[in-house]
């Protein structure tokens, strides 16, 4: 990795001759939640004791359906102009984590079931999806008569994947723990856990990019479909499945007063009700689908305005069947609310300012984005998609930072 960084450094600092070629690196980190704040993820990641006050706070913050998304992505790209057309190449390292879970599950996990006697705790639609892969992308942009058409093909080198889905889950605890009624339907996949090194290859996949840009009247219209693809994970992956409903009322014994630790341990040790086997499986990566309209600004302070809409498609599990439901489910199961945004560019003496207002996304609320762009032989864009949470120290539900350094060769 350090050699790679050294090469990038040399690329940017050594003067090479050329024209209209572009090379750059980007790095992006996003944490977005629709309910729980950054403290929650900090505690999960960095440990420490979660006290009762924190539990109450988190439970109060939580919604009936809680979503957490994190992305950490680094990318190197190179774009070469060939006559009017562009040939681009990108290498990306992508790490994503998507979690959705119910408020009941949060309460159960944080408090246990003692407080919920004579209640049913429902943890339907709990999903955990973690993905790490590298993308090697080749794009060709064809420019014809004020229209450009982009076709990209990516080879995906999958490192690790976790895909755990609890479609149905409930737990009823009778008064005084007389019995516990458990119902669950769980399936999931985990890639080979015997080697968890970052660049271990556990799967391979493909993805395509399609984009169309054209002018309509004074507007520039951009339609795109990005990263429509999949990774097929190898046969060392573990497939988990459990679907069960049972009432547990302890071990049936002849003499309840002759109890000992074996009764206790047998009672509270989870039995392995989960079937697991090793098999290959396929997972989809998150596909971006959207369009934007770019128009000239009549206000001299703003160079242009862009109005856009972005959605994501990523089903929980890969299915071969072809139906409209898969398409609609894929949008829903991405845990991403269609993002509407408007952005612009403001000229400044030293740099350009790129503001953005958006609504939706993983945070499902209003977001303020802001970036600065310093143009030079080596240009820099540094910004955030969630300026509003930078300003809200106490209850940050999102954090975002991206940087793009590029050079026109």
């Amino acid at each position, binding site marked *: *990795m*350090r050699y790679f*960084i050294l090469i*990038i*450094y040399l690329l*940017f*600092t050594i003067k090479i001759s050329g024209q209209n070629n572009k090379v750059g690196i980007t*790095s992006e980190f996003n944490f977005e939640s629709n309910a729980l704040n950054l403290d929650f993820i900090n*505690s*999960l*990641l*960095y*440990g*420490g*004791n*979660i*006290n009762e006050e924190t*539990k109450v706070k988190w439970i109060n913050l939580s919604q009936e359906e809680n979503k957490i998304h994190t992305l950490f992505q680094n990318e190197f790209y190179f774009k070469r102009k060939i006559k009017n057309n562009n040939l681009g190449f990108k290498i990306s390292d992508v790490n994503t984590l998507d979690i959705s879970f119910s408020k009941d599950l949060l309460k159960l*996990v*944080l*408090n*246990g*079931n*003692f*407080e919920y*006697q004579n209640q049913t705790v429902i943890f339907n639609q709990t999903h955990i999806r973690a993905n790490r892969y590298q993308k090697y992308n080749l794009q060709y942009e064809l420019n014809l008569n004020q229209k450009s058409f982009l076709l990209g093909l990516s080879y995906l080198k999958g490192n690790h994947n976790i895909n755990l889905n609890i479609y149905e889950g409930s737990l009823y*605890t009778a008064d*005084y*723990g*007389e*019995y*516990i009624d458990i119902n669950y339907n769980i399936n999931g996949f985990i890639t080979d856990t015997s080697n968890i090194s970052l660049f271990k290859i556990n799967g391979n996949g493909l993805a395509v990019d399609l984009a169309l840009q054209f002018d309509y009247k004074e507007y520039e219209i951009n339609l795109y479909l990005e990263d429509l693809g999949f990774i097929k994970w190898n046969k060392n992956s573990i497939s988990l499945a459990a679907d069960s409903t049972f009432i*547990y*009322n*302890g*071990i*049936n*014994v*002849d*003499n*309840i*007063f*002759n*109890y*000992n*630790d074996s*009764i*206790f*341990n047998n*009672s*509270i040790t989870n039995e392995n009700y989960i079937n697991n086997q090793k098999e290959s499986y396929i997972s989809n990566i998150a596909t971006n689908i959207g369009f934007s309209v770019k128009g000239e600004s009549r206000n001299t302070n703003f160079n242009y305005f862009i109005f856009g809409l972005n959605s994501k498609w990523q089903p929980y599990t890969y299915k071969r069947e072809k139906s409209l439901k898969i398409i609609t489910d894929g949008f829903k199961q991405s845990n991403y609310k269609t993002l509407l945004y408007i952005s612009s560019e403001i000229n400044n003496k030293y740099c350009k300012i790129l503001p953005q207002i958006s609504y939706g996304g993983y945070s499902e609320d209003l977001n303020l984005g802001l970036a600065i762009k310093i143009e*030079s*032989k*080596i240009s820099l864009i540094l910004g955030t998609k969630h300026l509003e949470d930078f300003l809200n120290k106490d209850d940050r539900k999102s954090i975002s930072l991206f*940087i793009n*350094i590029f050079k026109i060769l």
Partner: protein
Amino acid sequence: MLKYHKQFKLIYFLVLLSLTFSCKHELERPTWDINLIVPIANTQININSIVKDSIISIDENDSGLISLIYHENIIDINLDSIININTIIGEKTEKLDSIYFKDIVITDTATIGELIVQLPFGTILFPNGSINNIPDLPNVISNDTTYIDASEYFETMTLHDGDLTITITNNFPTDISNISLTLINQNNQNIIASFTFPIVSSGTIETQSISIAGMTIDKNIIAILNNMDVNESNGPVTINYEDAILTKIKIENIGITQATAYFPDQELSQTLTESKFNFNGAQIKEIGIKKGLVTINIISTLPDTGRIVYNIPSLTKNGIPFTTENLVPPTINGEMTKYEFNFDEYILNLTGKENRIGGDTINTIYTEFFTYIDSTGELINIDQSDSLYFFTEFIVIPEYAIGFLGYDSLKIENEYIETNAFSNIISGDLDLSNVDLTLSLHNFVGAEAKVIFNNLSSENTITNQTRLAGIDLNTGFNVINSPYILNTATLSNGWLPIEPFNTTISLEVSELLEIFPNRINTSADIYLNHNISPTLDGFLFTDFTFDVSLDMTIPLTFIANKIILRDTTDFNYNEDSSYEIEKLYLNIKNGYPLDANIKLILLDYNNNILDTLFKNSNISSGLINDHYIVYEPSITILESEKIDFNNINKIIFYTELSSTDINDFVSIYSSYNIEFILSAKLKLTIGE
């Protein structure tokens, strides 16, 4: 511009450097506490699970009313001692004076040719094949010595009996006379014997024999022909040099006092014996052996291995008589050689030797014991005092015996059986309704018996209370000291199964149980064949003798007043550090018409009280109707406070039971049960 470019280079370098080497925040697992409540165990107890004692069974009538059936054998007599055999028979010593030694024969030939050669011009005057007159030749042989080698028979022999015989066969064509012969031991020059033959006519045989008892003979014997005359022939005779005088020396009828010799295979002794067993008045024809061990003990002072053959024709298995043949090594330091034989499942006929004079007898075993020595081809030194000493030990545990079992009286004194049916009850009052007890007396023996009970009672040894059994409802007499005659049992077609003689005694014993007895005491006398003439048709199968069993029917209709049960159980618990038990809940659904009060006393390893759980916890009776029948269980939840489980070694359970109304009987039905559900509040720390 160049400066500006350098600034950017520096910025980029710092940014990349910080990205590369920025300090990492170590990832750690968060921890938090959760409280779980989980069911631990449950049990549903009905009368079937309460009454697990194998001697108590449950009877249920049409309405579901439960009665406990208690069955116990209170007397089970072992009569093995009547016919057990543990004795020694056939003790005998076989000495070597009976040893046989085959005859010793030594021959010598003297031809006429050998004689003529010794004469001056003999072969010229009497050529072979010629016809001549043989003149009178006095003293033709004198003091002629011949060495006899008997080493192929012996080295030396001292005889207590024996004859030495000389046979002279004269095949000369003329008579011989004045023959004098002396046999001398070469070693000590002792004369063994001297013989004189006045005349042996041509073509005749002369024999003389003398006793050599008491003499010692060596293997090297010198035979001295003191004199022999050849008489003149009766006219010319054919001179044939092959014609000879044959001399045969024979030692026969040998009885050895001591010898070093080559002995032939031979039987030393034969002991055919009838031995009588003492069965103390019993007259037994046949015994079936359950376990039998017969040991033949032998001491052999023979210098070499002996051999025995032991036959017991009357001891058979599957019709095959017992026989055994064994080698007997010389004893070392007087130690016995033992041969053990397993006689399990053999049949021992005790009527004596087959076809014996006087007919069959009883209690008698016939045995055959043979001793042998085998030729080894080696010189053996045998002394007359060498012997085989042997005897046979019989240890027999019979399976059955056929015959008259004798007149015997058996005393059963202060026998008791312990019962733990009430062992957990430490106090309280129990009022039972109508408990029937039946004593069944069974005689499986082919002999009549009279039984007299001297004691039949229940006893609580803790409270020192005793209750005597009373009137036999069948006879109207008190069961104590009343004689009960048990007629003889019979066999079906002369063999099993036994058809026993049975009789019963009926008693009402509520009072015997209300003291919560832990013992049932019995004393009795049994008289066998009392005033009966002996016949050999009797029998005894040791697994089936006399037994007295007790059957008690206890209807579970009672009044209980503060019956306190106590039970102690060991407790073994190693607390798992991953969780902590904060509280226990005991959810009780009582479907019995009994109120209960329970407490659990926790003891440490030194039996010190650590804590008392569920102190004074009242568990209500199930809800009952006007007929005192439970129609709905009561529900009681007991909670414990936090318990330190790690030091608990034992738990004592105290349960106090009382009927709902202590003036009315309640009944226990099969549908009644009590359900316990144990759950625990656990504190877990997640992430540790």
